C-alpha cells in the first residue's frame, strides 16, 4: 500500500468513524433520556419525531444557536481550550479500537479500525488519562468555587481510579500476551467445551471485569461516581460556567468516553466481535460488526440502568472505595491470575 493511498484510506476511515461516533453520542443521549424516563415512569422525549428520535438534532441546533456566554473573571485561554481538550482526547481514543475483522474491498484488506498499533491498549489508556486535563482546566479557569471543586474532585478521582483500572486490565494482557487490541480479541476466539465462548470474562477474569466496570464508571464521572458534577452540592461541577457549544462539547466528551469505555470492555472481556456466524458471505462479513455493536449497546444500557438505579457516593466513600477496596482487589486478582497462568 503506497503512502498516498494509505493516507486517503486513513482519512476516509477517520471521517466515517467520527460520523458514526458523533451519531452514537447523540443517540446515547437520547437513549439515556428515554431509558431513564421509563425507569422513572415517565415517557422521556416524545415530541420531536417518532419516539422523539429527532430530539438530538433539535438539541444540537439549540446548542449552536444559543448565546455563548463568557463570564467575567475567567482565565480566558484555558476557559476556551478546556472543552476542546476534553472532546479532542475523548474522540482520539477511538482511533485504535477495532470493530471487526478486516474487510476485503477490491484487492485491499481494510482493517476496521483507524490504526492497529501493537501498543493499542496503552494508547487508549494514555489518551484517556490526558482527558482529565479538560475537566481540571475547565474547573480551574472558570474561576468559580463550584467549578474548582468539581475540577479538583475530577482530577483526584480520575487519577486514583486509573490505577485500579490499569491493574484490572493486566490479567487480560497476561491471557493474550499482547497490547494490540486485535490480538487480544483474536485470543478470545473459540469455545470451551464447544458451548461457552472463550471470552475473557469466562476465562477467569470475571473479577477483573467488575473492577474494570466500576473503575470505568469513575473514570467517566458517571453515577454513582459523578461527584465532579454533583448538582446537589456543586451546581454542575466543572462545567457550571459553560454554556452553548462549549457545554455541548463537555457533553460530547462524556458520552464519547462512555462509548470508548464500552468498546474497550467489549474488546477486552466480551470477546469483541466474536459471535455466531451464519448466512451468505456478505452476512458473514457483516455479522461481527453487528455483534460488536450489540455488546457495546448492552454496555451503554447498563450505564444508563445504573444511573437510573443507584444513588451517589459521598466523596470520602468514593476515595476509600477506590484505594482501600478496589486497588487491593485488583492486585489480588492480578497475583492470582499470574499464579494460575504460571501453574497451568
Amino acid at each position, binding site marked *: 500500500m503506497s503512502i498516498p493511498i494509505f493516507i486517503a484510506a486513513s482519512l476516509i476511515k477517520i471521517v466515517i468513524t467520527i460520523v458514526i461516533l458523533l451519531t452514537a453520542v447523540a443517540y446515547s443521549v437520547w437513549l439515556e433520556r428515554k431509558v431513564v424516563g421509563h425507569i422513572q415512569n415517565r415517557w422521556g422525549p416524545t415530541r420531536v419525531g417518532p419516539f422523539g428520535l429527532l430530539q438530538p438534532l433539535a438539541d444540537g441546533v439549540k446548542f449552536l444557536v444559543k448565546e455563548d456566554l463568557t463570564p467575567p473573571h475567567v482565565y480566558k485561554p484555558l476557559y476556551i481550550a478546556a472543552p476542546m481538550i476534553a472532546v479532542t482526547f475523548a474522540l482520539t481514543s477511538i482511533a485504535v479500537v477495532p470493530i471487526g475483522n478486516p474487510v476485503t474491498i477490491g484487492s485491499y484488506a481494510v482493517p476496521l479500525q483507524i490504526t492497529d498499533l501493537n501498543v493499542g491498549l*496503552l494508547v487508549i489508556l494514555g489518551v484517556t*488519562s490526558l482527558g*482529565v*486535563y479538560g475537566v*481540571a*482546566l475547565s474547573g*480551574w479557569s472558570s474561576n468559580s468555587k463550584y467549578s474548582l471543586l468539581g*475540577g*479538583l474532585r475530577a482530577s483526584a478521582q480520575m*487519577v486514583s481510579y486509573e490505577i485500579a483500572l490499569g491493574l484490572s486490565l493486566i490479567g487480560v494482557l497476561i491471557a493474550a500476551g499482547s497490547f494490540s487490541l486485535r490480538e487480544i480479541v483474536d485470543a478470545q476466539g473459540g469455545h470451551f467445551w464447544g458451548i461457552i465462548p472463550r471470552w475473557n470474562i469466562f476465562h477467569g477474569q470475571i473479577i477483573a471485569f467488575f473492577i474494570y466496570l466500576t473503575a470505568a464508571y469513575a473514570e467517566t464521572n458517571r453515577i454513582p461516581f459523578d461527584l465532579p458534577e454533583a448538582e446537589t452540592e456543586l451546581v454542575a461541577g466543572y462545567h457550571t460556567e459553560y454554556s452553548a457549544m462549549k457545554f455541548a462539547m463537555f457533553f460530547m466528551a462524556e458520552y464519547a468516553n462512555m462509548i470508548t469505555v464500552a468498546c474497550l470492555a467489549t474488546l477486552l472481556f466480551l470477546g469483541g466481535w466474536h459471535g455466531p456466524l451464519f448466512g451468505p458471505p456478505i452476512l458473514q462479513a457483516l455479522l461481527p460488526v453487528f455483534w460488536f455493536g450489540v455488546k457495546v449497546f448492552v454496555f451503554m444500557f447498563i450505564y444508563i440502568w445504573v444511573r437510573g438505579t443507584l444513588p451517589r457516593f459521598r466523596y470520602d466513600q468514593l476515595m476509600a472505595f477506590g484505594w482501600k477496596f478496589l486497588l487491593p482487589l485488583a492486585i489480588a486478582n492480578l497475583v492470582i491470575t499470574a499464579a494460575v497462568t504460571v501453574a497451568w
Partner: protein
Amino acid sequence: MLHLILFTGFGLVCVAGAVNLLVQRHPINSALSLVVVMGALAAEYLLLGAEFVAAVQVIVYAGAVMVLFVFVIMLLNAGEEERTQGSRVALLLGVPGLVVGSLLIAWVLIHRSGTEAVRVGALPGYPKAIAQLLFHDFLLPFEVTSILVLIAIMGAVVLAAKPSQVQQGKKEG
C-alpha cells in the same frame, strides 16, 4: 526525509514548549507547556522505535505526574509570580553563560559523535523485550524502585497530611 521532517517538527514543538515554560509567568501555563513537551517527546520516542516508552511517557508523565502538578497548582491557587529583584547576578551572568555553554556543548556533540545516523525503528522497543530486561536483568533495581515508591507514598502522605491529623494518628496509634 519524512523522518527528518517529523523529527524537526516535534523537536521544534519540544523546544517551543520548553521555552514557553520559561517565559510564561503563570505556573499553570508552564505546566501545560510542559505537557506539550512531554507529548512531543513521546512522538520522538516513537520515531526512535521506543513505542512502549512513548506510551508510558504519556500515561505516567503527561497523564499522572503532570496532573499532579496541575492539581497542586489548583489546590494552592498559585498566582502569577511576582517580579523581584532576586539575583541580578544570575541574570547578567547566567543567560549569556547558558547560551555560550549550550552552543559549546552542541558543537562538541555534533563534532564528536560524527554523522552516524540512527535508523528509525532500528531497535523496536517491544513490550515483551523490555519486560524481559526489566524482570530478569534488572529485577533487583526494579524491586528497589518499588520500595522507593512505597517510601515516597508514605512520605507524601505524612508530609501532606494536616499537622493535626498526624498528631491524632500518633495518639491513636
